[in-house]
C-alpha cells in the first residue's frame, strides 16, 4: 500500500472519532507544553546568568593574580612574567594596572571629584580594546585620560554636600560641570605623613582624552588614568610605592618590602574565545593563579545541564501520562475497527501494513500534539516573560531584575520534546497496533469481535 494511501486511511479514521482523537491530542499537547514551559525556566535562568557573567567581564580576558609555588609561596606578577605572557601564542594584549594607594580628589576650576586613580600601560590597554570617545592618549607624563562618567560626577565646590545628590544618588544637574573637558587642567593634591605632619603636593594634569561609555548601563567609569612616568614622580614625593600613605609616627613605608613593580590587576587578553582555554591552562601549568569568565561559565553551564535534564525528566512524566490516553484511544480504535481490519486482511492486506497504519495514526496524534504544545508553550513563555515582571512589581512592590529572562525556549527544546513525544507515542501505540495485526479474519467477519 502506498504511504499516501496509508495517510488517507489514517485521516479518515481520525475523522470518524473526531472528539476522542482531539481530546487525546489535547492531552498530548498539554504534556508537551508542560515539558517545554517547565524546562524553559531552566533555559531562561541559565541564559540570564550567563548573560550577566559575560556582560560584567570580557570573555576573552584572563585575570592573573600571581604565582603560587612551594618554595616562595605567593608572588605577584612581575614585568618579566608579563613579557613572557605577551610572547605566548594567541595573546592579543596584556594589560597591567596599579591603583594609586590614596583617596584621590581632582579639582577642575570650582568643581571637584572623588575618584580612583589608575596607573595604566596605555599601549597595551589600547590593544586590549580600551577606546576613547574624544581626544587622544597621553603623550607626556602630565597628561591624563578620564573615564566617560568623570564629567557627570564633577560636583560644584560651593554647594552643601547634602544638597548635591538627588534621591537616586545622582548628581543634580545644576551642580554639574558643563564645560569642555579635553584640554582642561585638573589638579590632584597628593598627601603624605612626614614626621607626624601631613604634607601635600599638588600635581597638575592636562586632560587629553575621555574614555568611551561603558557598554552596560549600570556600569560607571569615573576613573582617572595616568601613566607610569607620572606615578614615578608621585612616588618620588611620597617615598612609598604607589603613593601609599605612611603611618603617622612610623617613617617606614607600610606593608612587606617587595622588589620591583607590583601590579594590582594583570589581564591577559586572548585573540579569540577558543584560545582562552588553552592559554588559561598554560598559565595554570606554570602555577599562576588565574580566573577567567569562561571557566566560571563552564561550571555554571554544567550545573544548568543537570537542572535542565531534571526538568525535562519531570516534563517527560507529563507526556507519559498523556501516552496512557493515546494507548486508550488506539486500543478503542482497533476494537472498533476490528471488522474492517478483518475484511482488509481477508482481501489480502499485509499485517505489516495494518500495523503501520495504526502506528502512523498514533504518531500523528503525538506529533500534532507536540506541535500544538510547542506553539502554546511559545505563547506561554512570551506571556510569562512579559507579565511576570509586572506581577512582581504589583505584588511585592519591587522591580524584577531588568533584562532577566524567566523562560527561554531555544530551538533545541521543542525538538527534544518532539522526539520524546514521538518515541513515547510509538511505544504506546505499539501494543494496539500489534493487536490489530492479530485480528482473526473469521471472527471479524462473523462480527464476533
Amino acid at each position: 500500500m502506498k504511504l499516501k494511501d496509508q495517510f488517507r486511511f489514517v485521516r479518515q479514521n481520525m475523522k470518524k472519532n473526531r472528539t476522542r482523537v482531539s481530546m487525546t491530542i489535547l492531552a498530548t499537547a498539554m504534556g508537551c507544553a508542560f515539558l517545554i514551559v517547565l524546562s524553559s525556566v531552566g533555559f531562561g535562568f541559565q541564559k540570564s546568568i550567563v548573560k550577566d557573567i559575560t556582560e560584567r567581564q570580557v570573555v576573552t580576558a584572563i585575570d592573573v593574580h600571581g604565582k603560587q609555588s612551594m618554595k616562595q609561596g605567593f608572588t605577584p606578577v612581575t614585568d618579566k612574567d608579563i613579557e613572557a605572557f605577551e610572547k605566548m601564542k594567541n595573546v592579543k594584549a596584556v594589560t597591567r594596572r596599579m591603583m594609586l594607594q590614596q583617596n584621590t580628589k581632582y579639582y577642575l576650576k570650582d568643581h571637584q571629584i572623588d575618584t580612583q586613580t589608575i596607573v595604566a600601560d596605555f599601549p597595551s590597554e589600547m590593544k586590549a580594546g580600551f577606546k576613547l570617545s574624544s581626544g587622544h592618549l597621553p603623550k607626556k607624563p602630565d597628561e591624563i585620560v578620564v573615564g566617560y562618567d568623570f564629567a557627570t560626577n564633577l560636583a560644584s565646590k560651593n554647594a552643601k554636600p547634602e544638597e548635591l545628590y538627588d534621591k537616586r544618588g545622582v548628581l543634580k544637574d545644576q551642580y554639574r560641570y558643563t564645560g569642555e573637558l579635553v584640554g582642561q587642567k585638573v589638579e590632584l593634591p597628593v598627601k603624605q605623613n612626614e614626621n607626624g605632619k601631613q604634607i601635600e603636593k599638588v600635581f597638575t594634569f592636562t586632560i587629553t582624552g575621555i574614555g568611551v561609555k561603558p557598554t552596560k548601563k549600570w556600569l560607571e567609569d569615573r576613573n582617572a588614568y595616568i601613566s607610569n612616568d607620572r606615578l614615578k614622580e608621585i612616588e618620588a614625593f611620597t617615598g612609598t610605592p604607589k603613593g601609599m600613605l605612611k603611618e603617622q609616627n612610623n617613617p617606614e613605608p607600610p606593608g612587606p618590602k617587595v622588589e620591583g613593580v607590583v601590579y594590582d590587576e594583570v589581564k591577559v587578553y586572548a585573540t579569540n574565545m577558543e584560545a582562552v582555554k588553552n592559554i588559561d591552562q598554560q598559565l595554570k601549568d606554570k602555577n599562576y593563579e588565574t580566573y577567567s569568565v569562561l571557566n566560571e561559565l563552564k561550571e555554571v553551564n554544567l550545573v544548568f545541564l543537570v537542572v535542565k535534564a531534571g526538568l525535562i525528566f519531570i516534563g517527560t512524566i507529563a507526556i507519559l501520562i498523556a501516552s496512557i490516553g493515546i494507548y486508550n484511544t488506539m486500543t478503542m480504535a482497533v476494537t472498533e475497527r476490528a471488522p474492517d481490519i478483518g475484511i482488509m486482511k481477508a482481501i489480502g492486506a499485509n499485517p505489516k501494513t495494518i500495523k503501520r497504519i495504526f502506528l502512523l495514526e498514533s504518531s500523528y496524534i503525538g506529533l500534532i500534539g507536540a506541535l500544538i504544545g510547542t506553539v502554546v508553550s511559545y505563547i506561554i513563555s512570551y506571556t510569562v516573560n512579559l507579565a511576570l515582571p509586572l506581577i512582581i512589581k504589583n505584588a511585592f512592590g519591587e522591580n524584577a531584575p531588568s533584562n532577566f529572562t524567566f523562560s527561554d525556549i531555544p530551538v533545541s527544546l521543542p525538538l527534544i520534546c518532539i522526539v520524546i513525544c514521538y518515541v513515547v507515542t510509538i511505544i504506546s501505540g505499539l501494543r494496539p497496533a500489534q493487536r490489530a495485526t492479530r485480528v482473526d479474519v473469521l471472527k471479524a467477519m462473523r462480527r464476533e469481535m
Partner: protein
Amino acid sequence: MITVKNVSHDFEIGKKGRATIIPVLRDINFSVNRGEILTIVGRSGSGKSTLLNLISGFIRPREGGIWINEEQVSKLNEAQFADFRIKNLGFIFQSFQLIPSMTAFQNIELPLIIKGMAEKERRDKTEEMLKKVGLSEYQDHYPGELSGGQQQRVSIARALIVNPPIILADEPTGSLDSETEEDLLTFIKQLNQDLGITFLIITHDDKVARIGHRTIELSDGRITEGELV
C-alpha cells in the same frame, strides 16, 4: 489449479487441558482444474466452510497440504498468504463483507489500494468495474444504502477488480432472493466463459450446485460423492 491433498482438520474448544477436539475434515483429496467451476455441497455442519477457509488461508490445516498454482500455500505465513491472496484470489461471501464506512466506489477500490496502484489508474479501473456490474449510479452509496443484490454485486466487483485467476465463494446466493440469485449465476457463468476465471463455490442449493462442471459432496468431513483424486 487448486490441489487439496490428504487434508484433515479439527477444532479444539474449551480451555486448555479440558479441551475437547471436534474433528471436522477427514482425509480430503480433490483438485480444481483451470477454467473450471467446481461446486461443493453438503449438509449444514459438514465442514464446507472450514474447507474453503483452509484454501483461503484464514486457517491452516492440521494435516495435509494445499497447492494453488503449484505453490504450497498451506506452508505460507500470514504475511506471505496476504500477498498471495491479493494477487491470486477473489472472494465472494454470503454476507458480502463490505466495509460499512466506505462507499460502493471505495469498497471496490480497496483491493487496488492494498496492491499499491496509483490513484489515477485506480479510479479508471473502479469506474469501469462499476459500469460492468451496473452500479455506476450507486457509486457514492454506502453498503447500508444498497439492497442485498446490489451489495453482492459490489462485493463481486471488489473480487474481480484485481483480475484474480480464482474466485472462492461461500454461499454466494445465501442472502439473495431467487431472481437475483438467477442473475448472479448467469454472471458467474459469463465470467467463467469470457475471462476463464476458475470458481470454487460452496452451496447447499441445488440450483447453484448445477452450474458447476463438477460437484463434490461433503458429509461428516469426508467426500462422499464426486470425483476422487
